């Protein structure tokens, strides 16, 4: 997840929204198996797998400040391209710099409500402001990495005699070669995702400057934060009063580190880590901040989104005969999508209300609400 703030208000961009959505849709490749505009050699791909968003910045997509505002600086050390299958390389090569399909999106939003003025100000957010949210990941590359290593882990679990109540829990002892290989491959996929969001952000900045005819300074489209929500990381946590090194798996869960955590950049050290929670395309998204209580209870983690209440199949049935795009447009949200099917699958009713989800983590104290963002324009795959 990645959130950008701007110097512009909702009113300033509203008259140009239709153009904006069209240009973003044209400039940012989306859709199932979509191919990007980058032409990468295998060597390029190896470099990006090691360097993540740093690779993108070195290639001219964005600047060093973006990296400071990205979890792990946009690259985890220890990614090893030699542990990646040819099939994953192949799927990844054409898809770097693409949004993809499913729940991935690019949204033009505005700040609809602020719950914590000081925290919002520290993140550069103000009421009525235009923001941009980007949700995409490691595309076919990461999918292939997962597929490849599930096979490896099924064999490993048998070899190490781990009894599993469900074979889908296939795993290996962390110190085993199989586990270390998976970890190094997963890091490569995480780096691929950070590079992807960095490239897409760069083209988003260009598209907005073109349509709104503004300078980078007037636009002020800078990164608030970028955070992963499907990842495993080695972290230190206090367990029964003792520091312990752990592998924290977050699957559809967002890191939510508290104020003072050494992994946070200086400008967020006193505040805590910004947490970005997208809702469905018709309702809202939220910005929260990490807390000490999350550290104590949930290994510094919180929710990641709304969560489906209908399967994709059910949603398609429910949307039959309806024009979802028009329903959204009537509600003041312009939407552009590669396929009608995606819009049906992704309609609001298919998801829980994000406000209810966020209220639970807020009341439980494992992250605190800062701002609510509402969509104005949506690009979907």
């Amino acid at each position: 997840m990645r959130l950008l703030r701007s110097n512009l208000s909702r009113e300033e961009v509203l008259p140009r929204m239709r153009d904006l959505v069209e240009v973003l849709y044209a400039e940012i490749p989306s859709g199932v198996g979509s191919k990007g505009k980058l032409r990468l050699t295998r060597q390029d791909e190896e470099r990006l797998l090691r360097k993540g968003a740093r690779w993108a910045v070195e290639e001219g997509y964005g600047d060093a400040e973006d990296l400071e505002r990205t979890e792990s600086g946009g690259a985890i050390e220890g990614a090893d391209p030699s542990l990646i299958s040819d099939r994953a390389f192949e799927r990844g090569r054409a898809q770097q710099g693409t949004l993809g399909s499913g729940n991935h999106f690019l949204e033009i939003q505005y700040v609809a409500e602020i719950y914590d003025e000081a925290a919002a100000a520290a993140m550069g957010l103000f009421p009525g402001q235009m923001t941009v949210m980007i949700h995409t990941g490691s595309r076919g590359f990461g999918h292939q990495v997962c597929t490849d290593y599930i096979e490896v882990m099924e064999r490993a679990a048998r070899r190490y005699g781990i009894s599993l109540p469900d074979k889908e829990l296939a795993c290996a002892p962390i110190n085993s070669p199989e586990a270390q290989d998976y970890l190094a491959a997963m890091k490569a996929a995480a780096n691929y995702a950070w590079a992807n969001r960095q490239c897409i952000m760069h083209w988003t900045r260009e598209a907005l400057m073109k349509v709104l005819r503004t300078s980078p300074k007037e636009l002020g489209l800078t990164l608030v934060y970028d955070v992963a929500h499907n990842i495993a990381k080695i972290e230190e946590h206090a367990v029964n009063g003792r520091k312990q090194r752990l592998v924290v798996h977050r699957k559809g869960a967002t890191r939510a580190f508290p104020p003072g955590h050494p992994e946070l950049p200086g400008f967020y050290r006193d505040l805590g880590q910004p947490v970005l929670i997208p809702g469905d395309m018709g309702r809202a998204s939220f910005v929260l901040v990490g807390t000490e209580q999350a550290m104590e209870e949930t290994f510094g983690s919180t929710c990641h989104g709304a969560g489906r209440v209908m399967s994709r199949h059910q949603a398609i049935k429910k949307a039959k005969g309806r024009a979802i795009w028009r329903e959204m447009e009537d509600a003041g949200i312009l939407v552009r999508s590669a396929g009608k099917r995606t819009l049906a699958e992704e309609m609001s009713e298919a998801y829980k209300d994000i406000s209810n989800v966020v209220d639970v983590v807020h009341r439980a104290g494992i992250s605190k609400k800062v701002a609510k963002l509402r969509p104005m324009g949506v690009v979907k795959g």
Partner: protein
Amino acid sequence: MSRAGLVRLDPNRLKVPVGYTEGMRVQGIIYLDEELEAFLEEGSVRQVANVATLPGIVKASLAMPDIHTGYGFAIGGVAAFDVNEGIISPGGVGYDIN
């Protein structure tokens, strides 16, 4: 009233007690209020419990209020394992590594 086998700890937390499935090493905690509990799938609760059986799991098998059934591990799940005694699992991250 919470469904069979689960214990409501407070308005925002639901416990999956050790014993919900065989071999649980720690309890499960699902962050959920009564309103969202209406959407809770039996399959995803079982997944939270299953994860609690894995070697080296620390404190609790956790799930967030956006929980739903995933590949092996529930989506919305958080699980931490000791680096010396624990495991790592691709199902605990999922297909959309990001």
